[in-house]
């Protein structure tokens, strides 16, 4: 079992499991990560969000020493990156975005091989492999070559592989990308269980319902900077509001509606195509009266996606 360095005795607050200070990365003349600082406490699940090219994967790769830092400092388990990377990686598990399973080997061989990279004794590795195959419902696939697995099974195996060293920190880069709803729900269940057991998780995902479900806290990054961080519900309430009205209509109809809604206190109006969005921070009585004339409208609680769009805009990010 792994152990972590004791927290600094001079402070009462336990040292964070992961501490990033003033971290920057310059690729040529492009500043991919711009002096970001954040911390992840032990046992916390933090969702790391941002549009494509915002700097998420670069940041994660800097934590793992796969991208060098241009400035700043990273401490994981109180150990500095990059000097103590081998020790840090021994206590970290990573689920990469791209499938990197060994396609020529069986499910069981993949896990045992990975265990060897961590110098886990053979008997422990075997026991751990059995445990993980059971936990991820892959026991019946044990002897199958990777090519014969479904997408969901491969993703589960990637997560199982990341857990072979019983990590204290789990880094997940888009863990459910390309999965059907059943497979995603199974992954979520397993991740919830890991969280309940106290595993610290850093998660990136474009599925914001997934992040909302799993994360205690979110960091939203855009253009290499952290634009918001906090508990997701609180952030949504503070920055977006309590509820959202989505109204469809022609330009003229929506113009008229927008004029009528101008009297609503603390409500923000946004137009995109032939839809009007109204983000309400508190109840506004005459909204519903005005909406009676509209053809199609929807009232729903504000969610993480609204927050994401609010902070990072609606324009496409294409590399």
């Amino acid at each position, binding site marked *: 079992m792994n152990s972590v360095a004791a927290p600094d005795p001079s402070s009462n607050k336990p040292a964070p499991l992961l501490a990033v200070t003033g971290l920057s990365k310059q690729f040529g003349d492009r500043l991919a990560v711009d002096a970001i600082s954040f911390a992840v406490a032990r046992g916390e699940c933090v969702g790391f969000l941002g549009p494509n090219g915002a700097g998420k994967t670069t940041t994660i790769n800097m934590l*793992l020493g796969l991208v060098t830092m241009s400035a700043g400092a990273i401490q994981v388990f109180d150990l500095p990156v990059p000097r103590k990377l081998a020790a840090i990686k021994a206590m970290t598990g990573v689920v990469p975005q791209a499938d*990197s399973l060994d*396609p020529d080997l069986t499910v069981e061989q993949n896990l045992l091989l990975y265990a060897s990279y961590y110098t886990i004794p053979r008997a422990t590795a075997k026991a751990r492999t059995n445990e993980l195959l059971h936990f991820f419902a892959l026991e019946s696939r044990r002897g199958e070559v990777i090519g014969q697995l479904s997408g969901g099974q491969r993703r589960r195996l990637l997560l199982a592989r990341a857990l072979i060293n019983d990590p204290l920190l789990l880094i997940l880069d888009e863990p459910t990308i390309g999965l059907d709803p059943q497979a995603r729900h199974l992954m979520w269940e397993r991740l919830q269980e890991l969280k309940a057991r106290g595993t610290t998780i850093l998660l990136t995902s474009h599925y914001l319902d997934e992040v909302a479900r799993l994360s205690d806290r979110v960091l939203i990054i855009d253009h290499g900077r952290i634009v918001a961080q906090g508990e997701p519900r609180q952030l949504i309430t503070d920055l977006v509001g309590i509820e959202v009205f989505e109204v469809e209509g022609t330009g003229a109809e929506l113009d008229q509606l927008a004029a009528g809604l101008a009297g609503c206190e603390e409500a923000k109006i946004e137009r995109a195509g032939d839809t009007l969005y109204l983000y309400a921070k508190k109840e506004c009585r005459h909204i519903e009266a005005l909406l009676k004339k509209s053809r199609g409208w929807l009232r729903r609680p504000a969610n993480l996606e609204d927050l994401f769009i609010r902070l990072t805009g609606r324009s496409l990010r294409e590399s």
Partner: protein
Amino acid sequence: MNWFAFTKIWQRNALVWRTHIMATLIGNLGQPLLFLLAMGYGLGHAVPPVDGLTYLQFLAPGLVASAVMYSAAFENTYGSYTRLSLQKTYEAILTTPLTMADLALGEIAWGATKGLIAALIMLASLPLFGVWPSPWTIALLPVLFISGAFFAAFGLIMTALASDYEFFNYFISLVITPLFLFSGIFFPLNTLSPTARLICEHLPLTPVVTLSRMFCYGRFAEPLLWKILGPLLLAAAATWLAITLLRRRLIR
């Protein structure tokens, strides 16, 4: 730093190799054995003895050295590049405590091992052609492994620079094929003009071909030291360069 961590990469490759052993063996050995058959057995009847050896005898040890080169160079170009790009094996390995040096050393040691396996099978099949290697051949094996390490490291350098598989065509046709033809495997270098001979003698495969012939027949007419030290230094330098270039490729 754990000096033997690279053996884990070696073991990984050996495990994968065992799952399709036949295809790789036939792929790597077909060419040298066919050359031996066509040139040695076929053409050999029309060629007078060279340095007191029949043409088949003259040819065989050099082809053993070339089998090492081909096997190691192919493994660490096409094989390594597949692991680097398509299978993302390197990416997966680098999230574990293994380092870039472990990764590169493991790949090179594996390429050299595949070269050695190719050499052993070639040597074992020589009696079929009536060529019986001397007991000294045992001492040749470490030399062949070193030569394999050089070509494996050279291949890994190409992998670190490659943007696609086509890139290796240059390596094979501009480096490997000329070495196969001009390292003294097919004709004795002392028949060449002094300039041509000087160039050929400094090609990295030449000392290995010469040593191969010397050990195979137990005829030690020339000094050995530089013929062994040369390939060893080359292998060390190429390994260092491979680690450096692979790091530059994978760690941005």
